[in-house]
């Protein structure tokens, strides 16, 4: 097994608040790993450190054997990491198709002038991007909406569009921040299968934050549990389900109660 992502004791402090403390993630190629924990545990903050939105106060992040600590988000994306957001961040006023096309821009080899003048090298690459984006929209069942404004899609489809957009950057590692938020049990079930499918189809490694335990237990190879920024448990779904600390964290039972 090859190690794809490794965080060495990453810590994030906001003023006096330590949102994440000494987080050590190890994710192997092809795995689906879940990051769980109560609200405010520091899960999204961990994502933001890994994807470069925040620079960790302490610690190092290695991705594909390269030190990516402190790199700008767009460079980390170029290294092969893509994400979705807990509170959907689509390019709202733009079409569904444009949302996905924009995620191809980072691979564009044609220069600025070549692109403006639509010279052959640009046209060739653009046509390839259009084809790929059409395929992704088709694959995610969004083809029929391709000319609609992204903000006009229903919530569930917006979440799917975010995944399509992330896939268009050709990631090795996909980070999903609460992909099942706001979904009903049927949709959640579909999503579980869907995540497995895309993992196999696009040879992805997946790190996901999720509250729906059916999703987490159904697809995770391993689970990290955060509480108040501290990693309180690591293990496979079975061991996590039976972990006393985890149960307490989730039920809000404190030691002295």
């Amino acid at each position: 097994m090859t190690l794809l992502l490794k965080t060495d004791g990453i810590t994030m402090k906001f003023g006096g608040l330590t949102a994440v403390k000494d987080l050590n993630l190890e994710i192997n190629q092809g795995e689906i790993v879940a990051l769980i924990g109560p609200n405010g545990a520091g899960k999204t903050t961990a994502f933001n450190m890994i994807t470069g939105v925040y620079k960790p106060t302490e610690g190092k992040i290695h991705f594909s054997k390269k030190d990516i600590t402190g790199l700008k988000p767009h460079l980390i994306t170029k290294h092969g990491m893509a994400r979705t957001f807990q509170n959907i961040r689509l390019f709202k006023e733009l079409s569904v198709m444009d949302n996905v096309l924009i995620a191809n821009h980072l691979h564009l080899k044609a220069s600025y002038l070549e692109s403006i003048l639509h010279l052959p090298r640009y046209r060739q690459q653009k046509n390839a991007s259009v084809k790929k984006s059409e395929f992704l929209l088709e694959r995610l069942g969004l083809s029929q909406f391709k000319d609609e404004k992204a903000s006009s899609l229903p919530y569930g489809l917006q979440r799917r569009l975010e995944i399509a957009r992330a896939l268009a950057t050709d990631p090795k590692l996909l980070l999903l921040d609460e992909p099942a938020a706001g979904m009903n049990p049927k949709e959640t079930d579909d999503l579980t299968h869907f995540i497995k499918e895309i993992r196999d189809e696009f040879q992805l490694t997946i790190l996901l934050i999720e509250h729906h335990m059916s999703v987490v237990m159904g697809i995770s190879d391993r689970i990290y549990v955060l509480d108040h920024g501290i990693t309180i448990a690591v293990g496979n779904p079975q061991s996590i389900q039976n972990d006393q600390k985890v149960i307490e964290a989730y039920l809000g039972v404190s030691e002295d109660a």
Partner: protein
Amino acid sequence: MKRRNLALSIIAIALLLLFLIFADSSLDSYQKRILNLCAIYVILGLSMNLINGFTGLFSLGHAGFMAVGAYTTALLTMSPAIKEQTFYLEPIVAPLANLNMPFLPALLMAGILSAFVAFIIGAPVLRLKGDYLAIATLGFSEIIRIIFTNTQSITNGSLGLKSIPPHTNLWWSFGGAALTVIFMVFLIKSSYGKAFKAIREDEIAAESMGIGLFKHKMLSFVTGAFIAGVGGGLLGSLLGAINPNMFRFVLTFNVLLVIVLGGMGSITGTVISAFVVTSGLEYLRFLDETIDLGFIEIPGVAGLRMVVFALLLMMVVVFFRNGLMGTNEFSWDKLISFLKRKFPFKKEVGH
């Protein structure tokens, strides 16, 4: 469909050319001047819309870029003899004294120099966001004005430049406007144009999709400054005389008015609005002058028309956020379906 639209476009261009031929030969110089101004405002509006409307950068430095362009073009096209006459307080510096070139390369130099200035100030300024960027760019444009007032041997200081060769005519201004429109359409359609819009929509998401914020903001800023420099060059040559005071914030405000009224992020909107605002500003000139109603004389209030336009801008911002076009663009298909809806005189087949 495609063929029909192509045909319509060719007809429209032919009509425009016919109109220009007619205007060039039959209109008086005042009317021609207004038409020239309209076309130049198309160029200026599009350049600012690229930065503010399409990329979402709140930049207010436009007058600065225009000043750089206007002075560059003027100094490069004025003959050595005229320059000697103009710079009577302090002679012009040696290399500039004899530098002289035709209008086209001078305009290109104006664009290049303005783009270069944008590149230099962009490095610190484009790391700022929102209001801070607005304040910094506003400061930049004031600094340009003050520098130009004090570099006597380069810009002739507050005396300004006079007898600038009047190269700008309808062909130059409309040619420039047409080229700018085509350039913008191609740019916005391209992958880079979409990247600019992505930054406008959501910087964090854009960056997460691999779009380098600084690089792309810089590209947009420098490109906009290039076009603004050319526009400034055309303007200076149209007016025949320039001085640093022309490039106060009001000039930036006029261009801002054009793009907000037309719709931030719409090429069509800017084109229409450039004509409306420019001719409107001219038409309302009477507000600044004394109005003689025969029985009573209303004294003119200098700047009243700007007040009217400022109020208009406020109303648009409050009530019609999206301006005339929002982010929509003109297309023949849309126009035709619009006309069909408005005038449904299709033959009704009975059922």
